[in-house]
């Protein structure tokens, strides 16, 4: 197993230590040749506009798009989810997204930092115990395509609709929140299992 974490900007260290907890060391991905031999890629939280620019200038945008299209498993949280989705609302027009999970995402859809919150979400595929979830200027999933499996939903408050917060399509797993900021490792374990299945 060789997991890479996109290490251009953002919450790289937390993802690395989360997978290290599971006995899965990660390598940092900053240049195209860092993609060689990876069995999976983690796309961390950060600022999606900054990540988008840096992906372009590092020459990673093309090779990474090819790798993802060829089925490289990917795990994206927050900004990472935005980068992996098909459609981004309230982003910049020149913002890059790889379109490997059929989601319509509204950037900062839960509001600015003052609205950032933590709580728990039920993720039935991970068992009965709810998963701790930290939402930071989090993106909202406005719509999920027919091929997307919604693994967890956050109930809407004050008349707001329920929103998917953990989704999977094929070998791509995404979360609106930051599982790497809390100690529960079940979502990372699910991604490791997805990578193992892909290799079989």
């Amino acid at each position, binding site marked *: 197993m060789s997991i890479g974490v996109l290490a251009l900007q953002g919450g790289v260290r937390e993802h690395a230590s989360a997978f290290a907890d599971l006995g899965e060391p990660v390598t940092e991905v*900053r240049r195209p040749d860092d993609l060689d031999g990876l069995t999976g890629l983690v796309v961390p939280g950060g*600022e999606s506009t900054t990540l988008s620019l840096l992906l372009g200038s590092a020459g990673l945008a093309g090779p990474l798009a090819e790798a993802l299209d060829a089925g490289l498993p990917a795990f994206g949280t927050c900004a990472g989810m935005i980068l992996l989705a098909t459609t981004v609302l309230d982003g910049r027009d020149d913002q890059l997204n790889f379109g490997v999970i059929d989601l319509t995402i509204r950037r900062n859809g839960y509001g600015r930092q003052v609205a950032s919150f*933590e709580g728990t979400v039920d993720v039935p595929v991970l068992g009965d115990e709810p998963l701790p979830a930290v939402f930071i200027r989090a993106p909202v999933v406005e719509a999920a395509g027919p091929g997307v499996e919604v693994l967890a939903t956050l109930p809407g408050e004050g008349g707001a609709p329920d929103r998917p917060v953990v989704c999977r399509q094929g070998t791509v797993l995404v979360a609106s929140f930051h599982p790497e*900021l809390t100690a529960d490792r079940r979502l990372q374990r699910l991604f490791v299992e997805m990578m193992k299945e892909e290799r079989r």
Partner: protein
Amino acid sequence: MTDSSSTDRPTGTFTVKRGLAEMLRGGVIMDVVDAEQAKVAEDAGAVAVMALERVPSDIRRDGGVARMSDPAMIEGIKAAVTVPVMAKARIGHFAEAQVLAALGVDFIDESEVLTPADEAHHIDKWAYGVPFVCGATNLGEALRRISEGAAMIRSKGEAGTGNIVEAVRHLRSILGDIRKITEADSAELYGWAKELVAPIGLVQEIATTGRLPVPLFCAGGIATPADASLVMQLGAEAVFVGSGIFKSSNPSLMARAVVEATAHYTDAELVAKVSTGLGDAMPGQEIGTLDVHLADRGW
């Protein structure tokens, strides 16, 4: 299946506040004085912008009392960009901080660049849902700010000088003492707490983790891509650039170059490439010639 999901969703917890700081790591936070500059900063890849009335080199030149910015200017910048917007309050001026919180800024910088409002006390930052960043020249100062609720520390450097020497001094002091504390035995940690004038609990935490309990960014004097690379290699986790962008001869190009150098700080070839043809960096000043040392503000 989601019926039992928690509807208890606290905002403004320390995890949520520190979490935003963590997501800014590896990035560049740029001082901007209007919406137009904010757009230039975002276009260049800034992870956040700092809204303030005058950049530090102008504050230094103009003298007088430097205060929180006009709310209309902050609102204009918030409307212009999608990245987080920070703003500065004077040290100890909790009413300015309340105003900034009411405006919904994403981070408040309790900053020595503005004229202090209180010569003995900093703001009690636990009282706010908005995260705070504070400057520090040494580890004791950093830990006192964290004990007051700061969710991010930035080494102070000497703002508005374009001179990196003070930033290096402060980073080396903070990180050097952290390294020594990880070598100390449990009895010596009490001596460290006393020497640093800092809570023993935070000193013990550092002894175990080998780092500050919140992200450590660098500010004050970064004027070139190589400056950014230098402080990142010394152990800063992101950089604030004040006058260094918009007092250079080509702000857009300089901003982009500093972003690249911060992301790829160990790649000297890349730093060389982005440093090429940037025009003039901001004019710099010798620390010995300064009338006011902003880094001395804060207690």
